[in-house]
């Protein structure tokens, strides 16, 4: 759906040119939710603006749906932009227009007749859940409602791609979740390809299928969200994973607490689990062991549960050994600390 080859953006400056995006290569498939994460200044904001040429690339090619965006003339580019929706951190609604007229704006630009505009706007208001607020002005809406208007506006011309520029960064956590659910909903209902940039790992975890981590204008790492969570290669990725999963070192310090006289301490890794989420109750039912959860964090991604649990198992040595053998037959990984006895 989207192919990016050797993309580069240089901002000329007096002393030293700023390299905002450097030799970026990406491939995004149709219907995918693709996340780009990075700290501020990593170039992700420039990157997303290059995709619909709000910024012109210095070098490289961008293909969206087989058409080369980077080679288009003005006229052609305007037409193509109508097929690329975009939503913004600060919503960027026209305060002088009502909700209805804001959503109708891209339809006006596309030259849709008045009657058809009205019907389409009603459809979109329904889709984003803003029924009853059609005639409100943006200043009368909450942040979440404003972003819903932004989403409806972006979808008005039935785009193939939706670009999300820090779309939830100005929202509180509850509203963020609601907006993210709406995005997933739209992705599934309309088969829309979504590219979103963010500095928040939990956004990636909740809705993205694949992720690219950006640092100083380059993609430091990319892959399935689960793989990146599980085997972060780069330092910057590890820091983002810690945002969601907590600090690994802190978990290691648990060893100091392992003063248990009996039983064993085991570490269970849930890796994209969808079938073994009830593992703890299974073990305590089937084997004569008491399972005591010491610490841990499990988090849900688009591809199942992911996280680590530290458990203390009490019972006879043989029974514990059998329980652990059983866990090993499941897809949950288990590590037993030898010195815990």
């Amino acid at each position: 759906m989207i192919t990016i080859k050797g993309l580069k953006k240089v901002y000329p400056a007096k002393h030293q040119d700023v390299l905002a995006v450097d030799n970026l290569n990406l491939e995004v498939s149709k219907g995918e939710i693709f996340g780009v994460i990075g700290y501020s200044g990593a170039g992700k904001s420039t990157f997303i603006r290059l995709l619909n040429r709000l910024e012109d690339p210095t070098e490289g090619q961008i293909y969206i749906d087989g058409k080369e965006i980077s080679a288009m003339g003005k006229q052609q580019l305007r037409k193509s932009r109508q097929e690329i929706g975009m939503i913004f951190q600060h919503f960027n609604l026209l305060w002088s227009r009502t909700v209805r007229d804001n959503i109708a704006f891209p339809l006006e630009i596309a030259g849709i007749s008045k009657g058809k505009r009205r019907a389409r706007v009603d459809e979109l208001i329904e889709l984003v859940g803003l029924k009853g607020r059609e005639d409100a002005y943006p200043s009368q809406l909450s942040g979440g409602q404003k972003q819903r208007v932004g989403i409806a506006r972006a979808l008005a011309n039935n785009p193939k791609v939706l670009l999300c520029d820090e779309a939830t960064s100005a929202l509180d956590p509850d509203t963020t979740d609601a907006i993210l659910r709406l995005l997933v909903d739209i992705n599934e209902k309309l088969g829309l390809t979504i590219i979103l940039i963010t500095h928040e790992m939990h956004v990636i975890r909740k809705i993205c299928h694949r992720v690219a981590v950006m640092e100083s204008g380059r993609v430091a790492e990319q892959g399935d969200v689960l793989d990146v969570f599980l085997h972060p290669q780069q330092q910057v990725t590890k820091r983002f994973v810690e945002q969601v999963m907590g600090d690994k070192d802190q978990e290691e310090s648990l060893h100091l607490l392992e003063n248990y006289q009996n039983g064993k301490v085991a570490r269970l890794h849930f890796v994209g689990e969808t079938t073994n989420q009830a593992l703890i109750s299974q073990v305590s039912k089937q084997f004569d062991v008491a399972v005591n959860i010491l610490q841990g964090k499990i988090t849900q991604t688009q591809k199942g549960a992911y996280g680590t649990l530290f458990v203390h198992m009490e019972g006879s040595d043989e029974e514990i050994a059998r329980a652990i053998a059983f866990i090993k037959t499941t897809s949950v990984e288990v590590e037993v600390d030898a010195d815990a006895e």
Partner: protein
Amino acid sequence: MLSELFPNVKMEDIWTAIGETFYMTLISLAGTIVLGILLGLLLFLTAKGGLWQNKILNFLAAGLVNIFRAIPFIILILLLFPFTDFLIGTIRGPKAALPALIIGSAPFYARLVEIGLKEVDKGVVEAAKAMGAKTHTIIFKVLIPESMPALVSGITVTAIALIGYTAVAGVIGAGGLGDFAYFYGFQRHDFDVVFVCTVLIVIIVFIFQFIGDYIANKLDKR
């Protein structure tokens, strides 16, 4: 009772003078709005980072605005005498004041328009671009509506300045309340006439201010 307090004030003449003041103010205001918005847009769009970024055009527009704003109004009238004579066919009367009034206040309003346009959220312009809007769509459906309260406040300020200018123009024979106060009041030492004209001008200014504020408020949905 009024005739006792102001023995030299003839109501018919006053009405004519008020009519002339309104005539000059309203016609020149219309001209100023059109010319000012065009110039203001030109200043804004050709500026650095603007939609029509153009150094030379911006320099010319800014130069024109600055020069005409620097000339004191009374001198501008004198300077424009030949032009006015050519255009209107006379240099006396309310009609003859119009070119100087418009040329004197349009650059002032153009700067106010430019300031108003600069305050439009850049994100909204970016959003319109991302939707595939043409430049004229951005101008007429984003920039102007989104800066409307500022444009209207600017019109109010300009209108009030214009009322002042019409009085100045009166001194060299343009008609209106300024003319009346100077020739029928000041020069004949009938100060009651000067006083009545002053009060009337103040009332007219208040009316313009009130209407302008009301409209600007109504338009502002922020």
